[in-house]
């Protein structure tokens, strides 16, 4: 008996066994549709198995069946909180493969559009995180901010969620005339909502306790797992595609890359909060610097010409016919181009054999590496810590499962 006392193993002696439980796919916290197979000891996560793929819709195969320009609507559905960013990423990759450069005004508008996408994505993410931690009021403040932003996006592309705004070699439409003024009005409102949101959460002890020191990861591990975006920057690694490999006109703009220090959920939250400020700053600069001029490449071979040109210009009419029936004949080759999306590096790897459709259209989804690292971030912590960690990873089913 005395011997037993010494090596007393509570779990063995009390005949308890871990609780195995399915969290998801239809669970309030597993939005984006994912399933966690949890092994719980009381409330502590002993083991977690992440099962993705519930939103798999054969994106890559679908792309092989579409013309190059018909893929844009599919890309909208990748990260559906920021559809226009995916448009930009895909268009830039195709343009790199073709070797064309869009006019300056187009580049500025693309930057404005992608930063609005980033704003929308961050608003959604931060709001969802607040809601899942119980702060419904904060959630609705950012949803309201997002609504105003979507009104703005609607004013130049006509859609609120799936924008389908960018084209190979240009855009579908120019910005409306009163755009700078309406943007300023919206930004004024949104900055107020931002302050309210920050006041409700950032100094709230309950919120700090929930976010600090949970779901952390070291910078080395984060790099090894292939992190990018806010989750990597929260670890203190100043990696941002907009700075390290500037595309569009990001090298002409003055903005900062907010970085964290500890890599925990609160740092990720703060990095995103700061990025909202930076995005607004970028858009304001763009609206000041934006030159007049055409928004499309003047080459009917790549950018569909205007209706007037089609009716009057022989070459335009031929290319319009050929491009609609056969698709643009993108030259043979392969290309990888990455942009900075809401969650990190969104890369498009395209292979062309010279036909009207891609042979391969592979997407590097930024949230996939983070999702695969979720077990090492939450193992040993409490069930409740899974919620903010999963929120800050910001798994978007459409992007991760494709």
């Amino acid at each position: 008996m005395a011997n037993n006392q010494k090596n007393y193993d509570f779990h063995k002696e009390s005949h308890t066994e871990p609780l195995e439980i399915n969290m998801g796919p239809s669970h309030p916290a597993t939005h984006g549709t994912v399933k966690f197979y949890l092994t719980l000891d009381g409330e502590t996560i002993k083991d977690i198995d992440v099962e993705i793929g519930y939103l798999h819709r054969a994106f890559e195969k679908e792309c092989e069946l579409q013309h190059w320009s018909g893929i844009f609507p599919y890309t909208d559905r990748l990260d559906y909180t920021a559809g226009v960013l995916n448009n930009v990423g895909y268009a830039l990759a195709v343009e790199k493969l073709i070797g064309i450069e869009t006019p300056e005004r187009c580049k500025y508008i693309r930057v404005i559009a992608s930063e609005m996408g980033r704003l929308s994505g961050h608003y959604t993410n931060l709001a969802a995180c607040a809601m899942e931690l119980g702060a419904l009021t904060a959630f609705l403040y950012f949803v309201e901010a997002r609504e105003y932003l979507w009104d703005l996006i609607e004013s130049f592309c006509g859609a609120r969620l799936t924008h389908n705004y960018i084209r190979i070699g240009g855009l579908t439409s120019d910005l409306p005339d009163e755009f700078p003024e309406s943007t300023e009005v919206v930004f004024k409102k949104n900055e107020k909502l931002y302050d309210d949101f920050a006041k409700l959460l950032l100094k709230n002890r309950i919120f700090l306790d929930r976010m600090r020191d949970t779901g952390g990861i070291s910078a080395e591990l984060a790099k090894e797992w292939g992190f990018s975006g806010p989750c990597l920057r929260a670890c203190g690694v100043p990696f941002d595609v907009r700075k390290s490999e500037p595309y569009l006109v990001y090298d002409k703009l003055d903005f900062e890359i907010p970085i964290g220090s500890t890599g925990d959920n609160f740092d990720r939250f703060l990095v995103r909060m700061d990025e909202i400020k930076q995005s607004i700053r970028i858009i304001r600069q763009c609206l000041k610097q934006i030159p007049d001029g055409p928004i499309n490449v003047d080459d009917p071979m790549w950018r569909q010409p205007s209706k007037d040109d089609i009716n009057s210009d022989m070459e335009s009419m031929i290319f319009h016919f050929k491009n609609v029936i056969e698709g643009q004949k993108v030259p043979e080759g392969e290309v990888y181009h990455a942009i900075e999306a809401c969650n990190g590096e969104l890369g498009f790897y395209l292979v062309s054999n010279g036909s009207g459709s891609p042979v391969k259209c592979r997407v590097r989804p930024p949230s996939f590496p983070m999702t695969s690292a979720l077990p090492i971030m939450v193992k040993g912590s409490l069930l409740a810590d899974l919620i903010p960690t999963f929120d800050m990873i910001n798994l978007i089913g459409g992007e991760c499962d494709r």
Partner: protein
Amino acid sequence: MIGVVDLIEVLVKIGFIVVLLVGVFAPVLTWVERKQSAVMQDRIGANRADVFGFRIIGLLHAAADAIKLIFKEDFIPRGADRTLHTLAPIMALIPAILAFSVIPFGGTYTFGDREVNLVIANLDVGVLFVFAITSLATYGVFIAGWSSNNNWALLGGLRASAQMFSYEVTMGLTIIGLVMFYQSLSMVEIVAKQDIFWHWGIIWHWPAFILFLACAVAENKRIPFDAPEAESELVAGYFTEYSGLKFVMFWTAEFIEIVTISALCVVLFFGGHHIPFIADAKLIDCFSSLGANIANLVAMVIGVTVFVSKLAIIIFLQMTIRWTMPRFRYDQIMKLGWKMILPLSLIWIFVVGLGMLTNLIPRI
């Protein structure tokens, strides 16, 4: 021997309380919660339910809810314990209403040679009775989680029982200082002693009030202490598998508990039915020209109105807390209860004791 008139009097009081709680407060609070959150969140709030085109600022939603939930299927999951599953919501609801029986919602009034005391049962140990009864609600919650044969419900039930047990202890300790101050455990006596404004609990015991309110919200399992039913973690916690009228019972129990807790706050800290600076006798005097009976009646109506108004303010405070805060983690709730509020309430008892010993705090 209890007389017929006494019986009628008690039945009228019980009827008043039950109608007030189940018939008025529970449905109106669902409306208040919707509308108040809507105002706080820049929304319009529920306003779609209408009868022949009349919407009455969304008040009909309470009726619509009731009708919808009554006609819902009463679902009992396979493998669940049918008896306990049915019993649990009843066990949660009854203590919530029962606790109100010792809470005075008015003073004592004389009609002819008859004294009417506006409390259903004037117990000498009213405070203890309330705590004893509210802790019974734990059984309902725990049995609900246990009998549902659902892992999320079980986790919710475990969290709820641990939380409610812990805060039960702490909540009791937070008002010991108050009991020492009034030297009584009877609710009626405590209220009677707050006739003078300077004897109100909040003036002498505001630290206890803060601690008590924190415990009370935790006991209610509302945000920020709603870990047992955290919808993002445990789906709906212990009532995940409940639908229809049984769900209504849990829902009603939660709202009635809000009222009960607020009533306790009003009685213990905010002078019950008393208007500041106007003693009961003075109030009756004001209307003495109408005759003694009518003066008493008017004072009674005023007293009850004042009590209900104070109640509404405290409820409003609780709702504001609910719509402002995020949710604690389960272990943080425990830490807060045992390591912060409990020591603080012990310190407060010590401070009050010291104050009374040195006569810095008066004995009343």
